[in-house]
């Protein structure tokens, strides 16, 4: 720590802190103009000039970009400081006499009329004063280069490439918003929203949070979702060996610091939408492929993201280059990395359990961690040949096939085959979060977590202890998240960056300030005021419609919300043993049993019974909260409340499933 002294205050700061930040921390005011906390120090206007003493040496420096490296005394009111500021302001006033900010600062500094005339005098109230804030927010904050300086000296000005509106400009208005003089005006949006300014304002909130907070929050701008690998590993949630375990000592090898240091090369983000400054897509460049049809080629690979990395640990593979190769080929072949990885993890467990063998896999050895064989299966899947043809069927069909063809134990395959409604699970271990088991099991399109991710609320925070609490969460969050789908919006800016004070509000998990922001978006677009509850209602209509659609297609009842037991508890004795302390404790505390007096098989069985029973109770509570029957079908009353009863054939469909009111 280094001491910084002001006229009447002292403070200690980290080396490298700028004088402006030190002053702010000490409660000392230094005038600034071209400085902004969202941006890197720049030092264009020199308004922040202050006299300093470092040892014997006294001189004037610009406070906004002067880093503290040794003890320093800052004279914010010395004659030399004041004189310097006055001269700068005099020149500015001579050049831009009508600009409000300059007039105000000049007045404060005691400058009335400049003593000289400026050759480039500009009489506009909204003249550009060349502070560069707009150029920098566009480049540093939004990662665009829509604005730039052109020319030097008196001809210097801010412009767009070739003086035309750049196609890269998304109209985010960050430049107009940050401009201190009003020199930038926005032209109308071609979509003709009802209130463009309101939309821009809502967007600016998140843009600003991304710039100011992301580096201390989720690092989405820097490593994207890959940061979840190390976190999930710490919380026993990273799937290892087909979800048997939740952590692994080698997880570090595929963690985000490793990718950041060695593989992620793109300095610029690759956002899905130009205006998004979260821009969480990361890429690996110049990667030499080791296998497959493109072997030996150097390629760019988009990713890997968390799910791809978690899928790899789920197969027991912890080789970062293997993940990149797999990521490349899944993308190239058009195969989902999650379904591939989860299906392979199932296959590997089947191999280790003796359900599969080399004869059945076309000669491939496929225990957990068999990286070379696993990538070979991926190529075969794409070619539609060999054992790849079998894996390409997906887990649901493989279970049936293995039971019929190889006489495997169907119940065991059901326990370890991680799919629901035919879709492979995404990459989280859910054994200790009942709510998330429901999140996967009840989800309309199968076992994905886009409807609800409740693991921290439930398992770590213990915020939703009762069945009713969990049911409420399984009502609100799926409805809320469905709303993003209805509007074609990405949900990451909702909760992968959060307002600084989010921890202090009621119900922080909902990120209420951001929900209000979405209301502003809707109102700004349509001209119709909406409240958060209105958004939920919009989703509820669609969600129930989808459930009814599922019913019609043969997937919309309680029997379809079943989950493989692996997602609810330990299937095997090995799994139980790996977390024995936890499970033994639960037998004692939750069920009043004495684990010391029980055999391992008895303990596994008792744990299972308790957990399966809880899942059924959860379904009861969720169906009730959603206004569904005990069989998981929307009641006629629910359909009416949501205006769905107008749908042709609805009453008949419900009646055919025994729902009459």
């Amino acid at each position, binding site marked *: 720590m280094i001491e910084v002294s002001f006229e009447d205050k002292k403070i200690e700061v980290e080396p490298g802190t700028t004088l402006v930040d030190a002053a702010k921390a000490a409660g000392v005011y230094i005038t600034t103009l071209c400085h902004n906390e969202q941006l890197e120090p720049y030092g264009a206007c020199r308004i922040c000039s202050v006299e300093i003493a470092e040892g014997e040496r006294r001189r004037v420096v610009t406070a906004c970009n002067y880093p503290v490296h040794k003890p320093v005394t800052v004279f914010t009111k010395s004659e030399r400081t004041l004189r310097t500021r006055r001269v700068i302001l005099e020149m500015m006033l001579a050049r831009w006499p009508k600009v409000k900010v300059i007039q105000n600062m000049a007045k404060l500094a005691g400058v009335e009329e400049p003593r000289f005339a400026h050759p480039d005098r500009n009489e506009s109230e909204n003249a550009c004063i060349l502070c560069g804030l707009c150029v920098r927010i566009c480049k540093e904050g939004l990662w665009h280069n829509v604005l730039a300086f052109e020319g030097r000296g008196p001809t210097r000005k801010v412009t767009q490439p070739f003086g035309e509106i750049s196609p890269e400009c998304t109209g985010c208005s960050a430049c107009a918003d940050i401009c201190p003089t009003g020199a930038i005006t926005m032209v109308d949006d071609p979509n003709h929203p009802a209130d463009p300014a309101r939309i821009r304002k809502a967007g600016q909130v998140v843009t600003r949070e991304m710039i100011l907070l992301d580096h201390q929050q989720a690092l989405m701008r820097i490593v994207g979702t890959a940061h979840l690998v190390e976190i999930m590993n710490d919380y026993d949630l990273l799937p290892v060996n087909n979800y048997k375990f939740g952590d692994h000592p080698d997880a570090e090898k595929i963690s985000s610091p490793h990718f950041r240091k060695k593989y992620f090369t793109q300095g610029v983000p690759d956002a899905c939408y130009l205006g998004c400054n979260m821009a969480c897509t990361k890429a690996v460049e110049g990667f030499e492929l080791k296998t497959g049809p493109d072997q030996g080629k150097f390629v760019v690979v988009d990713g890997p993201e968390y799910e791809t990395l978690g899928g790899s640990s789920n197969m027991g593979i912890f080789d970062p280059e293997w993940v990149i190769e797999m990521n490349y080929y899944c993308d190239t072949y058009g195969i989902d990395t999650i379904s591939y990885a989860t299906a392979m993890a199932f296959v590997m467990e089947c191999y280790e359990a003796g359900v599969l063998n080399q004869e059945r896999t076309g000669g491939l050895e496929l225990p957990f961690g068999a990286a070379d064989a696993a990538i070979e299966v991926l190529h075969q899947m794409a070619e539609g040949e060999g054992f790849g043809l079998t894996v390409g069927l997906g887990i649901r069909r493989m279970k049936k096939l293995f039971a019929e063809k190889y006489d495997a134990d169907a119940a065991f395959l059901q326990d370890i085959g991680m799919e629901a409604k035919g879709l492979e699970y995404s990459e989280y271990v859910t054994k200790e979060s009942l709510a998330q088991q429901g999140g996967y099991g009840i989800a309309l399109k199968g076992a994905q977590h886009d409807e609800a*991710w409740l693991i921290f609320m439930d398992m770590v*925070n213990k915020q939703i202890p009762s069945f009713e609490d969990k049911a409420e969460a399984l009502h609100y969050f799926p409805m809320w998240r469905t709303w993003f789908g209805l509007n074609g919006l990405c*949900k990451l800016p909702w909760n992968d960056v959060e307002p600084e004070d*989010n921890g202090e509000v009621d119900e922080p*998990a909902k990120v209420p300030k951001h929900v209000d922001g979405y209301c502003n978006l809707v109102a700004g677009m349509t001209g119709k005021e909406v409240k958060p509850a209105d958004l939920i209602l919009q989703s509820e209509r669609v969600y129930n419609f989808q459930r009814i659609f599922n019913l019609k297609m043969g997937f919309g009842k309680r029997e379809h919300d079943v989950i493989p037991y692996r997602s609810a508890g330990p299937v095997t004795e090995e799994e139980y043993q790996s977390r024995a302390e936890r499970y033994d404790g639960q037998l004692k505390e939750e069920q009043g049993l004495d684990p010391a007096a029980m055999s391992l098989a008895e303990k596994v069985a008792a744990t299972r019974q308790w957990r399966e029973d809880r899942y059924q109770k959860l379904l009861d509570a969720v169906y009730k909260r959603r206004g569904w029957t005990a069989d998981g079908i929307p009641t006629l009353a629910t359909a009416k409340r949501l205006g769905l009863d107008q749908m042709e054939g609805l009453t008949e469909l419900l009646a055919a499933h025994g729902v009459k009111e």
Partner: protein
Amino acid sequence: MAILVNGESYAWRQGLTIAQLIDEKKFSFPLKTVFVNGKRIPKPEHKKTILADGDEVQVLHLMSGG
């Protein structure tokens, strides 16, 4: 000699700070808020705040979505 951390008992010892507790519990997720006996303790104070025997600590992880 215990404190409650998110409703579960945790062994307390003299001098245990919030920062140490977070470390030991491996609460590495960055978006979180800590309350001790209902009062929010800002992050810069985690290193200095010493927990007392019997304290109720809530470490609220502010993520509701993967």
